[in-house]
């Protein structure tokens, strides 16, 4: 199958949806001539013009507010906040408006908007450009949250998100943009709310998100040599969470480890662990454990970065300590 980079797959999703529906627009800092900080909107300005590919001033709150207003009036805006760290400037718009408008006026207002952003540690760019803040948004009822880990999922989920009438946050990862993977030429969609078993196994379920899916897969491969068969499940969507797939996997393996880059405390791993505790307790041979980022503000120091987040090696060690 054709190979595309993750950012190219997202770019193609935008092109297809913008070509199909002129109500789809892209708005954000540096999305136009610059082509997006991670080059997701490369070439779109030339293709769709400055009215639909809207460069904005540096003003995250107004970007989300503008997208909200446009969505209320029937457009399908995709708002880009290049680094998720900057989204904290727009928290009021997201928390008090984007997540709530449809519930304030049930059945009367729809908010078909997407907020594209990214997170993750990479390359020594420090604590204000490396956070994984997905859990903040999972705490706000009214938002759907997807975190694609492959080019295939990125394109399929973004297309689905753009057509969804509920606000969707698409949280990408800076280490994934250059990742290549198979993407079909023909149109396809990835459903929101559906997890994906990325690797089958029988001894333990590793539930990993975003870039950590790839580290978990590497770990699973190495664990094979240790005589351990690990299943790797990628929730792909954090809200709504595909509990059935997670429970089904745990029923099979009786062990679960949740891995994410975000700091451990109150991360999405806490929610997943709680859900499995409630829904799969009888099938578990031990507690659901977490392996996540250290509870520290990331130093802008590339020597210390690897210490602060999980890796294939550390996941392998963690699994061995659970089963050993």
């Amino acid at each position, binding site marked *: 199958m054709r190979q595309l980079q993750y950012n190219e797959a997202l770019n193609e999703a935008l092109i297809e949806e913008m070509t199909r529906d002129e109500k789809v627009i892209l708005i954000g800092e*540096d999305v136009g001539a610059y082509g997006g*900080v991670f080059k997701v909107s490369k070439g779109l300005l030339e293709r769709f013009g400055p009215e639909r590919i809207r460069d904005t*001033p*540096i003003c995250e709150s107004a970007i989300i507010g503008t997208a909200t207003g446009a969505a209320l009036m029937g457009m399908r805006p995709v708002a880009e906040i290049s680094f998720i760290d900057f989204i904290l400037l727009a928290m009021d718009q997201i928390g008090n408006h984007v997540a709530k408008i449809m519930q304030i006026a049930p059945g009367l207002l729809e908010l078909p908007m997407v907020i594209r952003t990214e997170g993750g540690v990479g390359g*020594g760019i420090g604590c204000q*450009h490396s956070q994984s803040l997905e859990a903040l948004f999972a705490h706000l009822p009214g938002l759907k949250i997807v975190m694609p880990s492959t080019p295939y999922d990125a394109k399929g989920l973004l297309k689905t998100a753009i057509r969804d009438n509920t606000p969707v946050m698409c949280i990408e990862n800076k280490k994934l943009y250059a990742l290549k993977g198979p993407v079909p030429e023909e149109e396809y969609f990835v459903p929101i709310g559906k997890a994906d078993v990325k690797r089958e196994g029988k001894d333990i379920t590793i539930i990993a998100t975003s870039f950590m899916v790839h580290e978990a897969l590497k770990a699973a491969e190495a664990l094979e040599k240790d005589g351990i068969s690990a299943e790797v499940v990628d929730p792909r969507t954090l809200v709504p969470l595909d509990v059935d797939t997670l429970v089904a996997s745990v029923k099979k393996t009786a062990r679960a480890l949740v891995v994410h880059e975000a700091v451990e405390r109150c991360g999405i791993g806490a929610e997943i662990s709680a859900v499995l505790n409630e829904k799969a307790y009888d099938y578990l041979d031990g507690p659901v454990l977490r392996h996540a980022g250290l509870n520290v503000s990331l130093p802008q120091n590339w*020597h*210390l970065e690897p210490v602060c987040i999980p890796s294939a090696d550390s996941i392998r060690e963690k699994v061995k300590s659970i089963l050993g």
Partner: protein
Amino acid sequence: MESLKALDKGLVERMHEGMLRIRLFEETQSRLFKAGEQEGFTHLYLGEEAIAVGACLALNPDDFITSTHRGHGHMIAKGGDFKKMFAELYGRTPGACLGRSGSLHIADRGIGMLGANGLVGDGNPIAVGAGYSIRLRGTKQVVASFFGDGASNQGTFHESLNMAASFDLPVVFVLENNGMSCGTITASVCKVLQNLGDRAVAYGIPGENIDGMDVVEVYRTVGKAVERARAGKGPTLVNCQTFRHHGHFEGDIDVRTPQQIKEAQSHDAVADFEKRMLRDGLATEKSIRERRERIQALVDEAVDFARGAPKAPAADAMKFVYAE
């Protein structure tokens, strides 16, 4: 340009020295970064030297500054130590922030540098708080807040200027107007860009629009604003027109045309000032060359120091989360 003869000779030399210190530090940093000696982000101050130097010469050593993502120049102008700075950029423990904060978040409380900043526009409210503290403590200090034209379109600009004006706080808002909002040409997202100092009218404070490439003009204008602030008469907005010689960050693909970049680089505050010094008999080719060589030797020495300094140990990753 006006003669420098009317100025104190020592002041002229400090202006030249200060600008050269920034220029040679940043040119060296650009080379080192390109050579792959550091990872992460580095945003250089090349082209804008006259603003930091002119403004900081108008401050007392115990006054404060807040900075931007382009913070090396501000730190050097405020008296930053080359060794502590390069050690920070290399992620080494003798760094100004113990090697944990890097280029993007460099700070040194000891010299009144309250911190570079990874969030565009977030220094201004912090400067307001520093100003408020000065008022409460009755110390007659002043705080200068450096920020850019991009930041002037963030909500924090309005909130900060209004509050500082309302409380007559001792803050000087120094707007470095380089015409670029990260990767985007600000003129495409901002209706009135040339005289951003005029926005002061809206807050009932003085506003100035000056040539930010002329260190003397910056020194005089900021000096007047500092005097006003110290006298308890409140803030001033100083819009300094300037040029960014490099891209948003090192390695960036600049959206400006080669012609536009060439034009920006043709405005050189350091070369212009040296011409004036020569013209007015305040320097000779030899004295300028010697000053350059002396400063470059200090830069090189600091780089060697940083290269040889210890890296932060992995065991320290979790240090500093809470006050000791």
